[in-house]
Every structure is written in structure tokens, then in C-alpha cells.
């Protein structure tokens, strides 16, 4: 089973929380026999000496065992993005920061590939609220699963998407201070693997 991770930025040189989490989740899924790849819009890769540029001008490199494909901040035509996703042929796509990778999610939806949305912060929705139109809503409601980082993020999104079912996956980490990356990855595995599963 192949899983693509869409994340706005992935900087091996300067990680932030979401990047650390995405990398560790990828590694856990790979350890459990899944084929994983990260697609990112921005990345610095100065310390990665294995980078190469493919024919579509995407920059590819491997960071500690995880293959990364970087769009390098460029805007690509829908056809190019569609070809990219088609070529990767994933079984499921996991999205961090949905607003920042919106074009890729649209393409994913068009291709009929199931996707999971991870809502990481509440500020983005406020920032993008004016842009929320029917197609945006459709992207949220068509997701295999929508996951919020915590209750506060969930409530922020529920203001705009009243009927959207949002699951809190990580809250237990804060509450019980006891979930490991293995336990979190196990939850995600069930989402990717089991049809319409609950957690």
C-alpha cells in the first residue's frame, strides 16, 4: 500500500513540529511495510547531497530513508500535478495544512484517490475564510477522514463546516501525556487501511 504525505514545507535543516510529526509518522508507516513519500511545496535541502531535478523540474531527494518530492515553490499547471499524482499512484493521501496544498487535493479528488485531512492550526481557517467557497467545502466533506489536532482547532473549523465530522486524534497526547508515536501511527494505519473505520 502506498501513502503520499502532502505537507506545505519540509525542511530537513530546520524542522518545526508538523514536519517532525510527518517524518516520524512516515517512518513508522514504512517500518510497518507501507510505501511512503512526502510531497512538499517548499523545502530547503542544503544538507541533502542526494538531490536531483527530474524532467518536470521537481526536486527529489531522500531524507533519512524517506523519499521527498519538492515542488520548490513553483506553480504548476493542473495537468502537471495530475500527472504527478497519477505517476505516484498512491492508495491514500494524507494531507497536512489542507489550505496550503489545495491544488493538489483538488487533483487528488478528481482522480478519485481517498485522502485524509489533518487540521493543524485554527489560524489558517480564519485567514482563508473569505476564500471558502463551494469547492473548498466539497474538499472537506469528501475526505475519508478529517482529523483535528485538538478541540480548539476542531471548534474553529466547525464554525464554518457545521455538519463536518471532525475527529480529534492527538488530544489524548496532551490529556494523558502518554501516547507514543507507535500508538498514534497505529491510529492512522487504521484510518488508511480499514474502510470507514472508527478509531
Amino acid at each position, binding site marked *: 500500500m502506498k501513502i503520499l504525505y502532502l505537507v506545505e514545507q519540509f525542511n530537513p535543516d530546520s524542522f518545526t513540529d508538523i514536519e517532525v510529526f510527518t517524518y516520524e509518522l512516515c517512518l513508522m508507516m514504512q517500518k510497518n*511495510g507501507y510505501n511512503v513519500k512526502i510531497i512538499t511545496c517548499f523545502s530547503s535541502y542544503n544538507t541533502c547531497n542526494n538531490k536531483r531535478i527530474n524532467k518536470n523540474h521537481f526536486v527529489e531527494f531522500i531524507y533519512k530513508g524517506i523519499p521527498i518530492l519538492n515542488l520548490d515553490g513553483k506553480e504548476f499547471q493542473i495537468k502537471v500535478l495530475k500527472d504527478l499524482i497519477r505517476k505516484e499512484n498512491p492508495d491514500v493521501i494524507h494531507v497536512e495544512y489542507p489550505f496550503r496544498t489545495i491544488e493538489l487535493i483538488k487533483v487528488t479528488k478528481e482522480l478519485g484517490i481517498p485522502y485524509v485531512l489533518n487540521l493543524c492550526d485554527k489560524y489558517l481557517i480564519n485567514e482563508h475564510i473569505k476564500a471558502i467557497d463551494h469547492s473548498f467545502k466539497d474538499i472537506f466533506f469528501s475526505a475519508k477522514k478529517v482529523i483535528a489536532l485538538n478541540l480548539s482547532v476542531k471548534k474553529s473549523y466547525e464554525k464554518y463546516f457545521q455538519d463536518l465530522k471532525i475527529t480529534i486524534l492527538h488530544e489524548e497526547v496532551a490529556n494523558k501525556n502518554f501516547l507514543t508515536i507507535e500508538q498514534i501511527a497505529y491510529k492512522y494505519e487504521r484510518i488508511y487501511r*480499514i*474502510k470507514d473505520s472508527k478509531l
Partner: protein
Amino acid sequence: MLNKYIRTFSMYFQGTVWYIKAYGIKMFLRKLRHEAKLILSSFFERGNEARRKLISFYEDEEASFFDDIVSVIIPTKNAGSEFEQILYMIRSQKGIKDIEIIIVDSGSSDSTLEISKRYKAKIIQIPPEKFTHSYSRNLGAENTEGNYILFMTQDACPPNDTWIYELLSALENTGSVAVSCAEFQRSDSDLFYRVISWRHSRILGIDSNDRILKKPVIEDVTSLRKNGQLSDVACLIMKDVFLKYKHRTNYAEDLDLGIRLVRDGFKLVLVSSAKVIHSHNRDAYYYLKREFVETFFLKDIFKNFDILPIEFSSLRFEIINTYCLINYVVDDKISTIELPCKFDEFYNSITKIINSEYTYEIFKNYGINYQNKNYNDENLLAFIKKIMELNSVVVDTSSNKGLLIAKLRYSICLILEYMKGCYEEIDEHMLEDFKASIYKFFASSCGRFLSSCYIAGTDEDKDMLKEVYHELFKGV
């Protein structure tokens, strides 16, 4: 697509080569005839196909509450820093009336007992010399209050708070008496462990399904293992059934119990829809010991268990020379592969390397004293040295069958078969894991061959291996 078939064929081909070299063409033809019978019998059994769709039991909106006590039994000895989290997760389980935790401790000197008390576990202490896998678990079971017993190990962790509920549901919904589950790998799990775990799941048929196990039509080693495999890493069993049968062997006690249960007409269930967090990252020498010990017990459990006909003088020659060959291949051949590269390129390079013919002169610089410390533990090296010192009989190299090398070629094909499922590109990171796993496969094959040598060998061989026998039986 064609590549995929070529690779799979290559793996089976290497497996066949190894089997013929080890057991001879006559045994191979007998095995082939037997496998054909198995395929035929499974065709007729299809109506009874015991596979279930992969669903989560907790999906049920009207999930029931089990008005029962589940007694969790964990044999411990210095359970380590993660033990508290395991107990915490067990105590957090939902959907069950109560959980009873029973710790059977055989001489912990760390905080295991203190943590156990904090989580209100019942503690049974036994002297370390009395510990066996069966004795400690039987003792724990005799002191339980629940109707269900859940055997766990001190390094197995429930992944969520509905895990026991899901196991219990699987047991109840299928009318089985015991349930075990697949493993979810830890973050430090190495490639070797992942490959053997993946192969195990494939053999058991739980890589993408849950399975109900029952008595097979043909009771050969493979069918019985496939249909009687319980695992004490996580095994939930009805208490009344367990107390009637109990564990009785000092090793592979879970498999022995499972086989006795299916033979007596009980159903068991293996689930991959619920998993337990468990894996290892052990050194190569541990796997040598484990395989050595396992062969003795499997031989006792299965009447027709194949024992490799090999003399110690020949095996000694093979162990030393194969070890030197691996050092040569790892350092002089595999390390020169240009990275990063696509998996297909990596596959072709490795296949080319392992299919090359090597003469012993090539790798004389990588002899027994060559210490490849990146991948070898000191114990393995010390053990190989000990093997070298055991016998001074000079073996005629031309009559050597090259069994270990054939087995290793097959193992490398197996690693590649696994890797193709999760790696599209290979970098230094993965290559290191790959190299280390070659040494671990080598070590486990040595263990298997040495035990065969001891079991089927001459009195002279047994005498020579006496010290090795005692060393390898310690600590598994």
C-alpha cells in the same frame, strides 16, 4: 509487472536450490508431492474458508459491554523503562467490567515491582532459577479471578484503549476459545525483524485478513503451524479451557498449546484488524541462539520435523567461510553500490553480487579476525572463533555443499521481496539496515544448522558441541 514475477520466481528458485542442496532431490520430490496434496486439500476446504473481512470490531455502533473480568498475566524480569506505559494502557482499557493484572516476576532488580504496585497488580515472585515460559504463565493463570486470561510479554504494548475489547469481541463473535493478533512494529524495529515478521504473517495468512484456525485436513508441520499458531506476546484465552490444557513446554509453549487445542476440535482466531505494539532490535547472536533452541522444541512438537543431515566438520567449515564471505561481500561489493538509487537498480546490483561465484582465496583478507563492528556483535564473533577452535579436522572443500551460502542467497531474496513493497528508492540509511540484516540471517541459519548437527549428528559431534549446546540454551 514482468519484473515482479521475475523477482518472485527468483526467490522461489533460490529457496528450491537451498532445499535440494540441504535435503537432496529425493526429499525435494517428496515435499513437492506433499505441497500438491496440500493445495488440493485447501481447494476442497474452500467452502469452509475461515477468512474474515478486515473490519474493526469497535465499528459496531451498539458495541456491547463485556460483563467479565479479564486477567492479564505478564511474566517479568527487569521490564525496563516502557513497562509503566504498558501497565497504563492495560489499565485504560474500555468496554470490560474489570481488568486484573498479574505479574509473575523472576528476580527484577529495577523498578518493575514498584511500578506494578502502583498499577495495583497482583505480584507473584518466583526465584530466577525456577523461571520457564510455561511455569510462570501456569502459575499466574492459577491465581486469576477472571473468566478470560490474556497472556502478554513485558515488552508488548496495547495500541489503544479498546484493544482488549476487540480481542474479546473477535473471540466471542467467532466462537473460538483463544485469540492472538498481529504485531505493529516499534520505531526502532530493524529490517531483519520486519522481514521475519512479514514472512510469518504471510505464512499464517493474516497479512490482509483475520483468520479462524481449525484442525487441518493434513496434519503436516506447515499446516499445523498455520492453524495452531497462538502467540504469548498477546494471547487471550478462556480460563476454563486454559486450565484444562495449560502450557507444558519450556519454549514454543504457545504453539504447542494452539496445536493441542485445534487437534481437539477447538477453534482459534488470529486477527490483523487489531495489533499489539511489539518488535525487537536484537543483535545477531541472539537470533543464532533462538534458532538453535527453537529447532529442538519444534522437533519435539512435530513428529515429521525435517532435520538437516549435516556433519559438524563440514558445517564448521561452512560457518567460518561463509562468515568471511559475508564480510567480503558487504565491504567490497555491496558498499560500492552508488546511492541513492531506484529500488530496481539496487535489486539488480544485489542479485548480481549474490549470484557471483566466489572462491575462498578472494576473501582471505576478510578472515575470522576481521571485525566488521558496524554490523556484528562481539558475542557472534567470539562464538565463531569458538567454533573454529573446536575441530581441527581438515575438510575436503571440493565436497562442500555450500548449504549456508545457498540458504543465505534465499534469505537475501526474501529481504528484497519485502523491501520492494515499501521502498522505491534506497539510500545509505536503508543500505546499513540491509547489511546488518544479512548478518542476522546468517546467524539464525547457523543456529538452525548447529541444532540439526547436534540432533542428528554422531556421538563424536554431540560430544564436541556439548559446551556450545549449554551456551546457546542460556537466556532465550
